[in-house]
């Protein structure tokens, strides 16, 4: 293990040396300024601050308080090649290495294929071409498409799945959304109204969860997950759960459309319909002559919804909201032969944003609140569920708030921004993140923050399964552009 730790530190040092070699203050441009390349090098290191709740099936039990949950170094480059204002290419590559797998004693308990999958990343995250012809805009290629009005919630923001395998939801989602090859078309009918069409013809990717034994696992999801099958009184057989890979095929594509318009001088609304595979897994049991087979599957769902936003000048407040009706959302139901039932669900979010002058700062502070509610329609009280990652709770209410206040003059040549984010699930669980970010000069960003969770073991909701995963972290980033 000592050799592995040395290897880890040497790797981190080489990585940073490599990145620092490319230290320069400007984007690399060539082809008469038509090609621009920029990027960043970054390290985030997180330490667990809670004792694990052993035996509660929450995962991460091998990691003690004080263990390194994450020590990931990134090198990212993005390039834009502009042939004309109506024709340009964009690509983004990211490489990363998580040294925690080489630093922690607990890594010996993690299957080798899981470590190989999660320790190093080498990925072209996006690669697409933009074409404009009059009122028609096309984006073709591997991309992210974001609909909706919510912060930290996914109602309409369902087109791209997320990679939750290395820091759950606590990154900018731009950095954890999984890009998909898609066709995106937006047609401006009038300056106020546009039609949008999105088609991912052949590829489906599910939400990625941390593999078995990793700090980020949510059992039994993720690579290496096991289903505890009781075979006799007091006897449990742990059967492997197949990942249910969905093959690349026209039969597994997703498609949808949206109309967006504005009423009067500023009431924006949109309605959409998106037919897609549900990106969160549902456990399916397939009986055989011998032992049953357990798989994670992703049935199709039709999501119909709408959004709005408006600004009310007399109170200087932005109101925004969205609602969605999901037809055929899979629910985990052990009374069913295959463990799955399909229900309809409704969810909505209403949010308010208001920059406000507070006594703590001469600059205005950003205040934002959201109210979220989701209900499973036609709930069967006899349904026995397993885990709540696919939100099988019959009702869910979450309140959230953000306060952020910048100090551009407190420290010479820097902007200091403290902020706090709170999410509260009315089942009695939640998350608070105090954060302090310092932007120094043109290129440096240092963030010190903590993710503090609370909740109950063996209870439903989003935060309960991770209520013992509190952490503190430092995030250092150097950008070159």
């Amino acid at each position: 293990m000592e050799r592995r730790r040395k290897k880890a530190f040497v790797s981190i040092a080489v990585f940073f040396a490599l990145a620092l070699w490319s230290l320069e203050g400007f984007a690399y441009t060539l082809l008469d300024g038509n090609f621009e390349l920029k990027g960043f090098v970054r390290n985030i290191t997180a330490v667990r601050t809670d004792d694990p709740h052993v035996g509660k099936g929450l995962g991460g039990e091998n990691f003690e308080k004080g263990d390194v949950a994450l020590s990931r170094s990134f090198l990212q480059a993005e390039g834009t090649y502009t042939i004309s204002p109506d024709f340009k290419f964009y690509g983004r590559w990211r490489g990363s290495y998580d040294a925690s797998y080489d630093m922690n004693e607990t890594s010996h308990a993690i299957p080798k294929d899981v470590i190989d999958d999660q320790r190093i990343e080498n990925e072209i995250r996006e690669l697409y071409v933009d074409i404009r012809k009059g009122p028609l805009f096309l984006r073709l290629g591997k991309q992210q498409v974001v609909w909706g009005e919510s912060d930290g919630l996914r109602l309409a923001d369902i087109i791209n799945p997320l990679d939750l395998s290395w820091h759950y939801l606590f990154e900018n989602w731009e950095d954890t959304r999984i890009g998909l090859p898609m066709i995106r078309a937006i047609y401006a009918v009038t300056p106020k109204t546009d039609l949008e069409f999105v088609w991912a013809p052949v590829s489906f990717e599910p939400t990625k969860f941390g593999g078995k034994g990793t700090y980020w696992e949510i059992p039994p999801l993720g690579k290496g997950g096991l289903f505890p099958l009781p075979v006799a009184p007091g006897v449990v057989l742990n059967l492997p759960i197949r990942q249910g890979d969905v093959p690349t095929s026209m039969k597994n594509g997703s498609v949808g459309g949206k109309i967006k318009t504005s009423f009067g001088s500023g009431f924006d609304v949109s309605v959409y319909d998106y037919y897609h595979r549900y990106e969160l897994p549902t456990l399916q049991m397939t009986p055989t002559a011998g032992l049953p087979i357990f798989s994670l599957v992703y049935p199709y769902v039709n999501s119909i919804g709408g959004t709005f936003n408006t600004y009310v000048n007399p109170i200087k407040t932005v109101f925004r909201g969205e609602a969605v009706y999901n037809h055929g959302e899979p629910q985990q139901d052990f009374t069913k032969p295959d463990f799955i039932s399909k229900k309809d669900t409704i969810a909505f979010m209403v949010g308010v944003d208001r920059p406000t002058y507070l006594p703590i700062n001469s600059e205005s502070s950003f205040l934002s609140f959201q109210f979220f509610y989701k209900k499973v329609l036609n709930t069967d009280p006899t349904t026995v569920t397993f885990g709540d990652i696919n939100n099988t709770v019959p009702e869910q209410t979450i309140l959230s708030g953000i306060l952020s206040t910048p100090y551009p003059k407190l420290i010479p040549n820097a902007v200091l921004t403290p902020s706090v984010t709170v999410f509260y699930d009315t089942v009695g669980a939640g998350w608070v993140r105090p954060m302090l970010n310092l932007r120094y000069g043109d290129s440096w960003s240092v963030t010190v923050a903590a993710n503090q969770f609370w909740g109950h073991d063996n209870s439903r909701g989003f935060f309960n399964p991770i209520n013992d995963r509190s952490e503190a972290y430092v995030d250092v980033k150097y950008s070159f552009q």
Partner: protein
Amino acid sequence: MRRYFGFWVMAIVVSAFLASGPAGFAKEEGSFVPKPIGGEVKYRIDKANVDQYKDKLTEGLIKVIKEWGYAINVYETVHDYKFPEEYLDATEKYKGTARVNSKGGIENYTAGLPFPEPKTGIEVMYNYEYKYSGDDFKYSYEGQIISSTGRERKMSGSYTRLGYQGRAILDPKPAIPNPNKVELKEISAFTYPEDVAGLALLTVRYQDPSKGDDGWMYIPTIRRTRRISVAQRGDSSVGSDFTWDDYRGFSGKVSDSNWKIIGKKELLMPYHAPTTNPRSKGKIFNSDDCRFELRPVWVVEGTSKDKDYVYSKRRVYLDADSWAILSTENWDRRGTLWKTQEIAFSVDTERHNMFVSNQIMYDLIGKTTTQVVNFKQHLNLGLKESFFTESSLRTSGR
């Protein structure tokens, strides 16, 4: 090792590409290129002799010369700016029709200079608002924010504007028909530093003074457009010494302040900038790259109607020839002179326009400055309304 070979190859290749220097900025075809008008320095004002000329200098400029080591070179005054004929014709045609209502809004304005003989401070400011600056225009800018310790942070971006009213050159004239009574639409896009690169802010300003600006911002890290409140215009713009209301002298809503005329004077003002890219000399510009002339200016003071506004008072100095703002001073809430700004114009005699070559904002209390130079300036491009939409923001970002 073989398994990670591809990762390390990519990392080395990418790092090699990134190990490079600046490529500079290309002049865009058709953009305005100022020509220095030349001339000899008549006299120089510095710390040693500034008191001799104090009746010709603003209070803010005196402080900068005395306390910051600035010196100004004074040249012959050249009056070469003239409005385009179409604008002068419109001024004559609609003379006497515009008026200011009880809310501070302008009514019955069609085109041209609304108040050729202004009687009140707000009429002077509406002359500034509707002076000829093209029916649409755009430019790029670069700047540095210089801290009290002399360290620099850079910023860059672009600004594009479409005027709906008072159109003199481009069809439709004199106004773009719009039932929502839009005055103008503008897009501010940021390209540097990294934390704001890719941000683009669309602001819609209405003729009705009781109707606040509407704003949408495309934020690349969340990959969507967010409706925002642009009400807090007294906030620092991207951490600089400029607030959102400070650009080009004053970029806020005229009706949001009470204005009064202090007087009409002859003062030393930056004019006919010798270069579009003055050299920095620490926190100030190199004097040899600046040009001052004795100019007739209107002096107007404004106080915001918003009790929370960052400035207790703003004084603006407007060029009597062009109605452009040449300098400003801003007082903090305690009544202390806090900031002063110089805006150096170049005169485009062909297209009858005053282009802002550079601006500098001095924070006299915090001892910081923000220097901005503008380039790739275009006028009357025939920009379409479809560019100034939320949809356009959405599709211009990554």
